[in-house]
């Protein structure tokens, strides 16, 4: 179905090729997962399949691509649009018209299909993807998962032979991601559609993939094989695969179900780990005190009587579905929003009386989208800007850049950095003012396993240095690794609040892979298990 022969490609204005001498064969009906560190060329490879590379981006392209016998380089993305359906990462930015049904018809209209055929296909797609109830809705009113399913529907109406998806779930909460992935699996098994998908959070998708293509980046040779073969070798592996490798389990389990059989034999010899399960909250001096906080946007209630006290040196994870009020709560702590009812106190002072300037000097907030922050010509200028804005001397942040692994990029143009690097650049731009409270909103979007681990280690060091850290995230593995306490919001209320180990045990959504594997509150991370095995 897809064949690449010796493809080498470099973007304009860059010497090093992103793809080097890549050859690949994908059979009809196959589900191929593309993984690799950020910046390794995953998106570039996917865009070769419908000709967006090189047609849209320019640059130097060598080699040969064939998709269902057609040459994307010769036929251009438009010509390929009836063969290759392409779904993009950001559910917001790919829609043209504003009603679901019209969006589904857009591609067919471009292809001049007769009206009767369009009607038939729209009905089919609505049923296939289970989105019939959404047909008359405005796209802006849909949830993230619904948007991505509509985006898939919008390319399926042309009945393509191949469906290509560029990190379609990276901006979704776990439940919405699950919706999208099961839809894809159904399309793959029921219709025999060939699917090529790139993804960072492997634990979600490895079970659906027939094969995995690993792009190491930096010019290393790519590696392709069955999921078990690839996961046994690559650095980027989900927790279950890492544990299996450390313990030498054969064959490598891909799903929790497969892993449980092997874990069962292990459990009896395990000793409890030494880390304490108690929360030291009671004896911590409180820095954030939120009482009966209510807030609504234009009559839509976002927070409904939130009560929360956070002590100095605590590491709190704020979890919950999209729209449950996590971001609104963080914005209240940093004083961007003021309570409509109730109060928020920092160090015993009401935020309404403190003034934003006084708050931001001591509270650092890294918003979801690092692009909203970065504007300067170099990362160094970016950090100096923050320090000057706070009335501090510029400079003196080499240590910070080193810890974040960003010292190489100090003079780089921040917008040219990869997603993970930009995230850390934004983090540096906030932390350079040395805030006492650190708030992070979805810090792991687009980060691979290495970068996540580095971020977690860094945040734990900050906590150990006496800072208070609060992260709003969907990333269960990150929370398992570094949070002391988990607060789950639901519809603007605190639903659960407790020690991470307690909250993350025996939950369908909020448990880590290790916890699901052992069903034991002593084990949240691979390290917990390995520590117990060694002793």
């Amino acid at each position, binding site marked *: 179905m897809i064949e690449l022969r010796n493809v080498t490609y470099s973007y304009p204005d860059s010497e090093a090729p992103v793809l080097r001498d890549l050859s690949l064969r994908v059979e009809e009906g196959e589900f191929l997962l593309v993984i690799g560190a950020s910046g390794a060329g995953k998106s570039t490879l996917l865009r070769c399949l419908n000709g967006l590379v090189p047609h849209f981006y320019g640059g130097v392209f060598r080699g040969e691509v064939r998709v269902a016998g057609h040459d994307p380089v010769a036929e251009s993305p438009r010509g390929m649009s009836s063969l290759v359906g392409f779904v993009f990462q950001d559910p917001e930015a*790919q829609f*043209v018209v504003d009603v679901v049904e019209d969006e589904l018809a857009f591609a067919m209209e*471009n292809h001049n299909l007769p009206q009767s055929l*369009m*009607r038939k296909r729209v009905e089919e797609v609505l049923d296939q993807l289970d989105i019939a109830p959404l047909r008359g809705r405005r796209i802006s009113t849909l949830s993230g998962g619904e948007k991505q399913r509509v985006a898939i529907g919008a*390319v399926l109406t042309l009945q393509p032979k191949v469906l290509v998806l560029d990190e379609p779930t990276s901006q979704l909460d776990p439940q919405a991601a699950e919706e999208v992935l099961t839809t894809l699996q159904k399309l793959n098994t029921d219709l025999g559609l060939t699917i090529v998908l790139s993804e960072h959070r492997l634990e979600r998708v490895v079970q659906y993939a027939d094969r995995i293509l690993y792009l190491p980046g930096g010019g290393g040779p790519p590696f392709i094989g069955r999921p078990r073969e690839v996961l046994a070798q690559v650095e980027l592996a989900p927790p279950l695969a890492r544990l299996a490798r450390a313990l030498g389990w054969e064959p490598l389990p891909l799903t929790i179900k497969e892993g449980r059989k092997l874990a069962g034999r292990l459990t009896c010899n395990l000793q409890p780990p030494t880390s304490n399960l108690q929360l030291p909250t009671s004896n911590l001096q409180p820095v954030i005190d939120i009482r009966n906080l209510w807030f609504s946007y234009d009559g839509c209630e976002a927070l409904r009587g939130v009560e929360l006290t956070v002590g100095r040196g605590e590491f709190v994870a704020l979890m919950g579905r999209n729209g449950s009020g996590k971001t609104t709560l963080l*914005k209240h702590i940093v004083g*961007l929003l003021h309570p409509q009812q109730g109060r928020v106190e920092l160090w015993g002072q009401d935020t309404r009386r403190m003034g934003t*300037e006084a708050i931001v000097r001591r509270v650092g907030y890294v918003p979801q989208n690092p692009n909203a922050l970065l*504007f300067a010509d170099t990362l160094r200028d970016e950090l100096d800007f923050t320090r000057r804005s706070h009335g501090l001397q510029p400079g003196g942040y080499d240590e910070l850049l080193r810890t974040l692994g960003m010292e190489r990029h100090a003079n780089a143009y921040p917008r040219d950095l990869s997603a993970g690097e930009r995230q850390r650049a934004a983090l540096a731009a906030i932390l350079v003012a040395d805030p006492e409270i650190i708030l992070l909103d979805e810090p792991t979007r687009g980060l691979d396993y290495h970068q996540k681990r580095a971020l977690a280690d860094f945040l734990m060091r900050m906590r150990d240095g006496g800072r208070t850290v609060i992260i709003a995230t969907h990333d269960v593995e990150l929370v398992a690794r570094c949070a002391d306490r988990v607060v789950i919001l639901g519809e603007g209320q605190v639903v659960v609040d407790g020690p991470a180990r307690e909250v993350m045990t025996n939950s369908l959504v909020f448990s880590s892979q290790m916890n699901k594997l052992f069903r034991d509150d002593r084990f949240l991370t691979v390290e917990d298990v390995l520590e117990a095995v060694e002793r």
Partner: protein
Amino acid sequence: MYHTTTWLLWLLAALLPTMLTRNPFYLIILLLAVAVAYSTIGRSSPMAASWGLLLRVGLSLAAFSALVNPLTVHHGDTVLLTLPRLSLRPGGIILLELGGRITLEALSYGLVNGLSLMAILLIFATFNVLVDHHQLLRSIPAFLYQTGVVISIAIAFVPQMMASLQEVREAQTIRGHRFRGIRDLLPLFMPLLTSGLERAIQLAESMEARGFGGDVSHSHRKQELAYKASIALSLFGLLAGMFWYGYFPAARWVGGSMGAGGLLLLVWTLRAMGRRVGRSRYRREMWRHRDTLVSAVSLLSLAVFTLFWLLGRRALVFYPYPRFTLPTFNPLLGLASLAPVAPVLTTPKKGKAGL
């Protein structure tokens, strides 16, 4: 609801009186008819939020006109009161005179002008609320289709930009950014620009990957040339016709037919060019019985006003100077001014089965 063509006719029928008459009776009837049309069928539309704003703008425009006219124009015989005068006369020429004699004539003329301005605003506001924008876009000719899509995307871009701006402003505030001078715009402007561009590129990719810009069948060079020549010829005909019409009043029919010929040729060429863009339409609008009714009423109203304008222009004129007289009222014109209320009467009531 109604067919887009019906709404376009409605718009024409409502606008024409504001162009042809200054008679306050007809204007008031028209305003009321439009307001009723809005409040009964427009309120449920998602665009209704803009109506209130436009209403306020219209009211303040009317009030402004009604105030400024009597303050600056001092003609008319009926003096209501005399205010202290404030004049601007560089070199003896009176440029502007504020205050002084306030006349009933100037006041009434200002009011009528304000009324007509407000009517135009409200008509467009109501049309904006009632019509389906995407249908409106779809009904533009095929050769303009791409322009139409670009416009609709540009319209959608504005609220997105506002949301981005808010996000950027918050992000910079928490970095301690304060707005002190023009240099401080940079931290706001750069992220806004780059994220806007990134968004635009993503959308362009998504449209390209779904075949937008489509199958323009590769036409031959000769054909292309023929189209261009045809457009040039039609434009020439149009201009020459207008020139002739103006300068040789003895043989107006020559100029008129040249102009009409040019126009016809232009329309035909553009249609032929549009047909090359292979593009089908998913939605076909339904023409219902009530569309016929509303269109008929609109056409009738248009006909009445045009006839009066051609034959008995005096019935439409209201000119209060030099001495105020009450404007005349012709029942037929009054009835014609009521035309914009037609969609209200033919819309099925809620609860009844829809047509």
